[in-house]
């Protein structure tokens, strides 16, 4: 062990000497903490409870799940790190920030995982299970030493905590209780109300026998007590009281609840990460609202069943992720062609192919727009926050129904599992479908009574006397009769396309974050909004004329983009998908692969939209984005200088 790391460990030991009472309290506007453990040790539950309580205390909150890629990775390995990151603060928190300020780690290997990802601030406080340092197994002791050595170049403050030893005073199997003990440590450090946390624990375990809650609360209190006795560490984050009614949940819960609120009554799916939790949630509760969840034999059948249900009068939903979306390609075209309303929720993950199944990416945009052979216009929208996950389902259903079209909603693994609080939605009966009314079809009404201007028409559904007809994926006329003539084919294509133009005309230009004009405009879509805006704010604070805008609709595109772009000297997208590094070998401006939105925007506006994109399998950091913006600004000014010379 190198002297410096020995020093670190020594310093800590002093810190956590028994009986020392907190000497000083840190006052901060926000803090980012993580709990990481081996998979199965409960760090995620600990983090979720901490986040929920933080939200209920009116802190701004954003959480990110730390998920291992395997089901049960080997214990004590970097690959196995599992847990939760919580950024909370006085103000609204919209993203996971730049780095973590405090970690509770159940072993040194999972800590290393985080360290190696550069996830921790240089002065990060680390509370770590101390037992490994003196493990009977020499190999483990060595691993501990090596880990301390490896992290010794940073100024982390490492505080060993005898978690297991403490837990053993209350329970037989300490692996099961550590997470609550850790929660107790955090409660004490951040000065949370223990009773509030106990309540949350009881709510979480409501379905289990009361002993379970009791045992967990015991361990929580043990943690609080131990921290009071041993930790010279208090962090206080101020909070603002508010009367606003709020809820806190993750994006998959929000989307599921949004689907129910929207009045959808049928959802078919096939399990796939990271979309599963939406469907699992609906599997649990949808029936209570008269809704049917159908787990189909595959994604094709799920799309088919959803289309069948919509055909029969519903507006059905199908939920999936990349590989599943790929399988639905053919059926989506059928829905477009037959003008059967359908909502497709795609929770994006890392691609291509199986890719990074548990990790975040925003790279299904072009597939969502263009994957169907033939011309198949459809609506594509992307919520940017947890709140929007809820409301976009309501909007999606409404558009699908009124426009008899397919609406694809793109969320991602970051929104899916991140928790945030937002204004409690005020539910509205008008979101629901009118109850089925099988009125007779009057003579002259036709299944595709396209309004020649708008392409809109009213559906006729089975059960309506006099409305009998056969829908078909073949080209068809107003009566749904198969038709191969050039005029009718041209007409059908035009009508299906026209609906999008009509929808586009009802939209407003996207709002601008920052000034309405300036040097650089950053454009984003989806879950990156919070990080982009935070980065923009930082760079603005440095005096740069940077603004950003965020697109909710990707098809049709919101109006006014060209006009907005013209007010900025430079436009670039920031996206969580792949683009070629312009400086890489063989890459020229002509052959450079661009971020997916950048590509779309260039075609749409003919503006030379640049992009900065990455595919790290984790959310973008505001700090990294800010760096990219600074580089873009200085490159731009260099070019200008050169031009001026």
């Amino acid at each position: 062990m190198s002297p410096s790391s020995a020093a670190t460990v020594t310093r800590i030991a002093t810190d956590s000497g028994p009986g020392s009472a907190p000497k000083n309290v840190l006052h901060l506007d926000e803090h980012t903490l993580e709990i990481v453990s081996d998979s199965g040790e409960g760090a995620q539950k600990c983090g979720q409870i901490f986040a929920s309580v933080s939200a209920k205390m009116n802190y701004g909150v954003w959480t990110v799940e730390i998920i291992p890629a395997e089901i049960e990775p080997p214990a004590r390995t970097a690959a196995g790190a599992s847990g939760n990151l919580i950024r909370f603060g006085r103000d609204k928190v919209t993203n996971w920030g730049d780095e973590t300020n405090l970690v509770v780690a159940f072993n040194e290997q999972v800590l290393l995982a985080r360290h190696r990802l550069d996830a921790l601030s240089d002065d990060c406080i680390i509370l770590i299970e101390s037992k490994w340092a003196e493990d009977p197994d020499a190999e483990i002791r060595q691993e501990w030493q090596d880990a301390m050595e490896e992290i010794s170049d940073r100024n982390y403050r490492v505080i060993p905590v005898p978690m297991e030893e403490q837990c053993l005073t209350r329970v037989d199997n300490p692996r099961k209780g550590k997470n609550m003990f850790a929660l107790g440590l955090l409660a004490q450090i951040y000065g949370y109300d223990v009773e509030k946390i106990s309540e949350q624990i009881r709510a979480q375990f409501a379905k289990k026998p009361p002993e379970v809650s009791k045992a967990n609360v015991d361990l929580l209190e043990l943690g609080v007590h131990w921290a009071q006795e041993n930790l010279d560490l208090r962090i206080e984050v101020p909070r603002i009281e508010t009367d606003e009614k709020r809820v806190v949940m993750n994006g998959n819960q929000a989307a599921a609840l949004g689907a129910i609120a929207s009045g959808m009554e049928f959802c078919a799916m096939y399990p796939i990460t990271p979309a599963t939790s939406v469907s699992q949630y609906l599997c649990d509760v949808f029936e209570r609202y008269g809704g049917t969840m159908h787990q189909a034999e595959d994604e094709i059948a799920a799309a088919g069943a959803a289309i069948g249900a919509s055909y029969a009068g519903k507006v059905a939903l199908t939920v999936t992720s990349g590989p599943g979306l790929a399988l639905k390609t053919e059926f989506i075209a059928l829905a477009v062609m037959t003008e059967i309303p359908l909502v497709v929720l795609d929770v994006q993950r890392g691609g291509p192919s199986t890719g990074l199944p548990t990790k975040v990416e925003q790279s299904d945009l072009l597939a969502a727009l263009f994957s169907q052979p033939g011309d198949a216009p459809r609506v594509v929208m992307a919520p940017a926050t947890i709140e929007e996950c809820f409301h976009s389902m309501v909007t999606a259903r409404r558009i699908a129904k009124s426009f008899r079209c397919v609406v694809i909603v793109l969320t991602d693994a970051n929104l899916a599992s991140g928790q945030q609080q937002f204004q409690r939605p005020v539910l509205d009966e008008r979101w629901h479908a009118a109850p089925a009314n099988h009125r007779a079809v009057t003579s002259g009404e036709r299944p595709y009574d396209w309004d020649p201007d708008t392409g809109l028409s009213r559906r006729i559904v089975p059960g309506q006397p006099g409305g009998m007809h056969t829908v078909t994926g073949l080209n068809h006329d107003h009566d749904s009769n198969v038709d191969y003539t050039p005029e009718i084919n041209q007409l059908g294509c035009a009508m299906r396309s026209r609906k999008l133009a009509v929808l586009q005309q009802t939209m407003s230009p996207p709002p601008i974050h920052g000034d309405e004009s300036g040097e650089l405009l950053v454009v984003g879509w989806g879950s990156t909004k919070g990080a982009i805006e935070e980065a923009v704010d930082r760079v603005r604070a440095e005096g740069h004329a940077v603004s950003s805008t965020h697109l909710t609709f990707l098809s049709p595109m919101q109006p006014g983009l060209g006009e907005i772009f013209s007010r900025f000297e430079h436009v670039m997208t920031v996206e969580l998908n792949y683009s070629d590094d312009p400086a890489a070998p063989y890459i020229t401006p002509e052959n450079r692969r661009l971020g997916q939105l950048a590509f779309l925007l260039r075609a749409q506006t003919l503006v030379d939209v640049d992009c900065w994109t990455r595919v790290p399998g984790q959310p973008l950091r505001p700090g990294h984005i800010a760096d990219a913006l600074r580089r873009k600004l200085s490159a731009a000014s260099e070019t200008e200088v050169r031009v001026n010379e």
Partner: protein
Amino acid sequence: MSEQLRSFFGCGLDDDRTFDLNDYGDSIPRWCVGCGDHGVLSAVKRMMRDQRLLPERTVFVSGIGCSSRFPHYLDTYGFHGIHGRALPIATGVKLSRPDLDVFVVTGDGDCCSIGAGHWLHATRYNIDMTVLLLDNAIYGLTKNQTSPTTPEGFETNTQPHGTYLPALNPLSTALGVTNASFVAQTADWVPAHLLATLKAAYEHVGFSFVRILQRCPKFSAPVFSEQARTPDLHELLFHSDGITVPSLDKIYKHRLEHDPSDLDRARSLAEDTERTRLGIFFKDATRPCYNAIRHLPTYTAAQNIERLNRELDRYAV
């Protein structure tokens, strides 16, 4: 549709309309002259008339193929889907609208090749619908390619030196699937038997799978031509709980009593294809129906909003 549901949805049984064949459609089908599909269409209309099916409560779902054009020639609701995927669509229709009578018309390529996975699962779900497999042992619409049921050695455009493998037996395949509840076979050239089979299939509550041997004079004429001419190559399965068509007894000499509740025997009868057996191989009305299991009450928007507000309370800050 079960009587239960009929009365639940207040339609059908208490509707005293009667219909004639033309009420179910009178357009001229675009199948070749001599195509077996014509006969199936007539039989289906006859069955619907006899059972007094309401055109507006009846949905025919199909995939893609000559056979899948079926819904276009009926004046009921129809869904001409995509190749191989009629069953998932029909699943969605029936699950969300139990008041509708759902029929599926599919071909041997549509059902047994590209649609095989859905076929297996639909059999297992045992959703109450009637499935007509129009098996002409060939791809008709795309003009003469080998299908899973094409006889070994038969020359087609894709296996021009003779089809490589023995024909798939759709009956034994269906009978192998857990929760299969109705498996029958009939032929387009025995209209009385066809009609009786359709009735039995419709009346069975569950997934009624009927393989209809269907002539395609255009591309697979030799497969069924001798067969269709020769009653002696057939064997009619009869039983009090199956079907009996006394009018055929004179012509069809080979008859075999078979209790459709006997699965083992059904399988062995299906396996042995020396004789073409027509009748109900297997029937079990006690097998669980997915649509019945999943049947749900409906709530008003107001009720749902009240419930949802309670759910939101759980997330309240």
